[in-house]
């Protein structure tokens, strides 16, 4: 016996431990959210290239699209066009999408749509730069560059601070800066001038184009400066000289090449639209599961077809109902017809709702009982009697549906969802109990069953719980452990206390 106890508690602990650790792993490491309403801010970025196609020439259009941008992950992307062939190529550090068609007429529209979500990953896959080409400068430029770089060198310690100071120096808008930027202090001119100075000091640098992700209909590609410090790339704000990439900055392309290119078309127009799309955290977890190698996420219910998922959403609540029945029967001592009949009735309540469900259940069972008492007089054998009751039950269901339809009560239609075989067995058992143990016993068990059904319905239809058990089926292991543990209960049931109450008084 002691051995057995150790065995069962070991099993309980093992199940509990396994369930909890899978649960925690999936929550903390794989980011499966705890509640259904948890949403993650993500952005839908739509870029659109429009142009008028030349007649009778093949058209080839291309534009750059983001490729593994820092701070962001691409959840989904679509390429939309009419009849174009689409390919995506890696071109240096950039990714470009190429659209081609043999013949096209009139205005053309090419769409690239992607959903980005913020990610923790910050590592950029930029390669180290090649040899730096030093531009040949004229006399005045050279002296301006030298002056600035000398000043900057005084007030800097390393490549990063050198680049930052250069930007600050240029933004002072003094004579040398004006000379280098041509008196145009836009971001791109400042960056060009900065790159010129840095390259003269044998520091690799390049411009970057990207977007600030915020609701905008016509988003502009903003410029940023990237500087190579010998180990990795440092991003520097061309206005302030601040280092580091802002969290909301989505890098669209590296380098200075034009963003788009059209062969065989006129009047090209490239626009970008940004809009926030709240995405259910669970679907993000799911798509991450598809990308990642985690088998634990891949083998989850989320990979099943949607209609199968819906079935499992319901099925997974059944153990919760069974657990409730365990408590009601073994701890409280409520009598029910059939062990798990209340769970099935509770499943039917999901569709009918509680009040209507109880009304319909009581109606059908009481009319069914009347029919059963009448059939009793006919002296039928067991199976024909059950078949007859089943038929009567279905007739009653039809009657209720038709009557309630005519009365305009929609809820009455849901009667068809009651498990009729269960209803039949309930009627039969209730009738036998009625005959043998009396009406009060039969009604007591009937009310007990309904009560248990309502309680388990409440537990089973509690949305957060439903979601939790669906997103984390391993919680069933914990539930199993609880069931085994509660199954060890040897003490008195609540109703037993009532039964032994008078007895307890006498033994004092």
């Amino acid at each position, binding site marked *: *016996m002691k051995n057995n106890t150790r065995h069962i508690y070991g099993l309980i602990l093992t199940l509990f431990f396994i369930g909890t650790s899978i649960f925690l792993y999936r929550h903390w490491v794989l980011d499966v959210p705890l509640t259904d309403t948890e949403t993650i801010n993500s952005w839908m970025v739509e870029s659109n290239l429009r142009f008028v196609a030349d007649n009778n020439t093949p058209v080839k259009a291309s534009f750059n699209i983001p490729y593994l941008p820092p701070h962001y992950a691409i959840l989904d992307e679509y390429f939309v066009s009419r009849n174009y062939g689409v390919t995506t190529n890696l071109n240096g550090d950039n990714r470009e999408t190429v659209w081609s068609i043999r013949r096209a007429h009139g205005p053309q529209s090419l769409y690239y749509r992607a959903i980005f979500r913020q990610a923790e990953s910050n590592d950029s896959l930029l390669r180290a730069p090649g040899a730096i080409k030093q531009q040949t400068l004229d006399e005045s430029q050279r002296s301006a560059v030298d002056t600035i770089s000398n000043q900057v060198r005084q007030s800097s310690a390393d490549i990063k601070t050198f680049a930052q100071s250069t930007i600050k120096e240029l933004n002072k808008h003094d004579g040398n800066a004006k000379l280098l930027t041509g008196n145009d202090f836009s971001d791109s001119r400042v960056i060009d001038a900065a790159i010129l100075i840095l390259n003269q000091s044998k520091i690799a640098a390049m411009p970057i184009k990207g977007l600030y992700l915020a609701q905008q209909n016509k988003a502009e590609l903003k410029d940023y400066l990237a500087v190579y410090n010998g180990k990795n790339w440092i991003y520097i704000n061309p206005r302030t000289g601040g280092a580091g990439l802002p969290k909301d900055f989505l890098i669209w392309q590296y380098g200075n090449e034009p963003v788009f290119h059209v062969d065989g078309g006129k009047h090209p127009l490239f626009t970008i639209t940004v809009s926030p799309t709240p995405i259910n955290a669970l679907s993000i977890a799911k798509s991450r599961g598809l990308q990642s190698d985690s088998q634990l996420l891949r083998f989850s219910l989320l990979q099943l077809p949607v209609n199968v998922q819906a079935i499992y959403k319901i099925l997974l609540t059944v153990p919760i109902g069974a657990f409730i029945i365990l408590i009601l029967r*073994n701890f409280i*001592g409520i009598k029910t017809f059939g062990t798990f009949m209340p769970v099935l009735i509770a499943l039917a309540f999901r569709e009918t709702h509680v009040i209507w469900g109880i009304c319909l259940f009581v109606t059908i069972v009481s009319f069914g009982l009347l029919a059963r008492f009448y059939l009793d007089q006919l*002296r039928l*054998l*067991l*199976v024909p009697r059950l078949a007859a009751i089943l038929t009567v039950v279905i007739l009653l269901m039809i009657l209720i549906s038709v009557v309630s339809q005519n009365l305009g009560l929609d809820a009455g239609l849901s009667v068809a969802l009651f498990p009729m075989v269960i209803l039949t067995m309930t009627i039969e058992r209730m009738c*036998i109990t009625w005959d*043998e*143990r009396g009406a009060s016993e039969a009604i007591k068990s009937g009310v007990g069953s309904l009560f248990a059904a309502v309680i388990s319905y409440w537990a089973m239809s509690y949305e957060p719980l439903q979601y939790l058990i669906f997103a984390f089926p391993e919680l069933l292991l914990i539930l199993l452990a609880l069931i085994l543990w509660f199954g*060890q*209960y*040897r*003490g*008195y*049931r609540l109703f*037993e*206390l009532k*039964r*032994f*109450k*008078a*007895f*307890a008084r*006498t*033994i*004092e």
Partner: protein
Amino acid sequence: MINLFRRLKNHGILSINQRNTDFVLRYNPRKLYPLVDDKLKTKQLALKAGIAVPPLYEIIETEQQIKRIEEILAPYPDFVIKPARGSGGDGILVFKDKVYGRYRQINGKLTTTQELSYHLSCLLSGAYSLGGTSDYAIIEKRVVVDPVFAEVSYEGIPDIRIITLLGYPAMAMVRLPTRLSGGKANLHQGAIGVGVDMASGKTLGGVFHNDMIDYHPDTLNPIVGFEVPYWSQILEIASSCYDLTGLGYLGVDIVLDKDHGPLMLELNARPGLNIQIANREGGLKRYRQIEARHEAFPQETVTEKVAFSREHFARSS
């Protein structure tokens, strides 16, 4: 509430949950259940072991037999019809004699042959059996109440229920039918349970539903202090049922026939807890004592077991 819980626990009163896990599941292997669930098998086993049982008249297994039921029943003036796999005394009919071509039940109700046939067909199709499986009917000799019990029972036949653990009689009670129980001796149907002193066989005090009672509600005769006859024989029958079936935790039902003395009626593999109320004592202490004794002397004979129980479970009051 918690106080009540603790008080019951201190007095070693067995709960349903504990009965199921610590006794039924431990001592009664499932594969042995058919021996007690089928009354005919129990009867045959008992006969083989030399335990007295009510004589078997007929077995009704098919509808054909029901058709000529009158013919079959002709030789017997009084008899009992029982479902072989019935539970809780359901489906049992007791017939006293035959008048005007009708069978008279013990409660005076006259039953036509047609009604009897319907009852039998219901019985065969499993209306009274556990789980609704098909069943057959046993027709056996009607037990005639021993005069000792005539004053304290209303219709029906009182029986003696003895709980045995590993063959040691642990607790005993007499079950007296009442008008409410319809002549049946089952407590949940309204019969009275009266505790019996293990040593002397004297009745102690009764329980009606869950309340204490000291007189019979129908006859108003006192039910305390009369002596159950054949007491040692009854205990020996109960004790030997363990060797008979191999079931360690048993409820043995014994009736006293006017002519034949104690007869073993049926066995129950999951006896109820009301016997504790009838005895006004928890069962757990006795069970633990028996378990300890069994550990120490595993090979005791029936006589030794009975002697142990009579010695240790005596009531001085």
